[in-house]
């Protein structure tokens, strides 16, 4: 665990860079996390995905299936992978402030 400055606030992240306290997440934190994933500018398309992930996580406590993500945002799988080059788990979920998913990711 390390304390890092993301978007102007001190926040704890694990060694894979996932924030530990989802309550501390805000848009500035998301922008800072996006930079760590090599995404310089978050476009409206990015935000559409991020906001859905965030809302789903707050409701159910886990990340949604990519099936749901595509259905709800209207993006194809390819569009999601293109938007987040490090993938839906390590890219999109991380930026949306979700914990690291379990398993081979």
């Amino acid at each position, binding site marked *: 665990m390390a304390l890092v400055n993301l978007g102007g606030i001190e926040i704890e992240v*694990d*060694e*894979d*860079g*996932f924030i530990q306290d989802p309550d501390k997440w805000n848009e500035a934190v998301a922008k800072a996390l996006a930079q760590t994933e*090599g995404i310089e500018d978050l476009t409206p398309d990015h935000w559409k995905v991020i906001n859905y992930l965030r809302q789903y996580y707050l409701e159910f406590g*886990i*990340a949604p*299936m*990519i*099936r*749901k993500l595509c259905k709800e945002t209207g993006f194809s*799988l390819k569009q999601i992978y293109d938007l987040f*080059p*490090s*993938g*839906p*788990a*390590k890219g999109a979920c991380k930026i949306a402030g979700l914990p*690291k*998913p*379990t*398993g*081979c*990711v």
Partner: protein
Amino acid sequence: MSILRAEEARVLIPPYQDLREKIDRALGGATLQSCLACGVCSGGCPTGDIGAPVDPRKIVRMLVWRMYDKVLASDMIWLCTMCGRCTVYCPMGVNMGDLVRALRTQLAEEGRVPRNLQKVVDLAIESGNNMGISREDYLDTLDWMQEELQAEFGNQAEIPVDKKGARVLYVINPREAKFFPLSILAAARVFHVAGESWTLSSRAWDATNYALFSGDDKAGGILVQRLADEVERLGCQELIMTECGHAFRAIRWGPEQWLGHKLPFGVRSIVQLMAEYLDEGRIRLDPSRNRQPVTYHDPCNLGRKEGVFEEPRRVLQAAVTDFREMTPNRENNYCCGGGGGLLSLSEFGQIRMVKGKVKIEQIQRTGAKIIATPCHNCVDQLNDLCRHYHLEVKAKNLIELVSDALVTDVNKE
């Protein structure tokens, strides 16, 4: 030697006696005393001297000197990826992978498995898969992929679920259903074109078994038994594993260790099955659809541990135009750096990147743009490494390349 060991056994206090028995069982023919302290193992460890040290010789020597508490408390036990490269060179055959797992078994019994690894095992036991995916969500994703399959091949093409009497039960890694379902579609395309009689399961569909890494023998047995029961329930003849190194190792090595007997049916990797389809002419590939240079990474569990070296190479030779071997390879291959559960151990996320640097240099030397590997864990670690070291190479499973090159009635000239 036996007198010495008997003497030791007499003076060890019970918890250590128990550990000692675990170690002896794991080592089989060799013993800790077999170790000549030559250090060839430490020299063979791919990344033991990079970043946080992992020193196999030191682990053995400390155990010989009965420094049990210190060994069990050492990060080395969790940083070792149990890749087995050290053991290839050991003149006395002291199997470090099995030894480290025996130590983890002790720690699992004491409730000392790192949190992030334990979580994966617990979730698999409680929910039926290591990502906690609901049955409804899993089936919905299969339906989605079936729609894609039918869009290409028509309504008779299907992704069968719980089809009794199918020849093959195919089991997947939950990350495929959750985040990367195109590999399920790729497998379905290959099965369809090969005319295979196959099915997925709605109940026991998770191939993975993280108890292989955590050391929890009881959980390992439960997870292996679930798959065995499902093969029996559906009346399948063969269990085919997705491209997942540890899952393959767990189902091949685990039954005798955890259940006390072999499985009454065959188990193969889908890579082996694809090689067979090619040999028998059941599928044809057009390599010109994969023109980028491709190299191959041997997953430790599939290669060094289970001897699957040539089938994946045969498949790649048929699927791509420019296949390039990485050096070293086969028995001498370097671990991706994320094995042994390390990928899940966020406790060591940064060290995982540091230790992967040599692997990146090996990939870079091939000039390949794609690194193919039949292991989801390796794929993720290799993609993490490529991003971390700014290498424009993409790691993929073999099925993706095979599916792209697959000649079908629909797409042939």
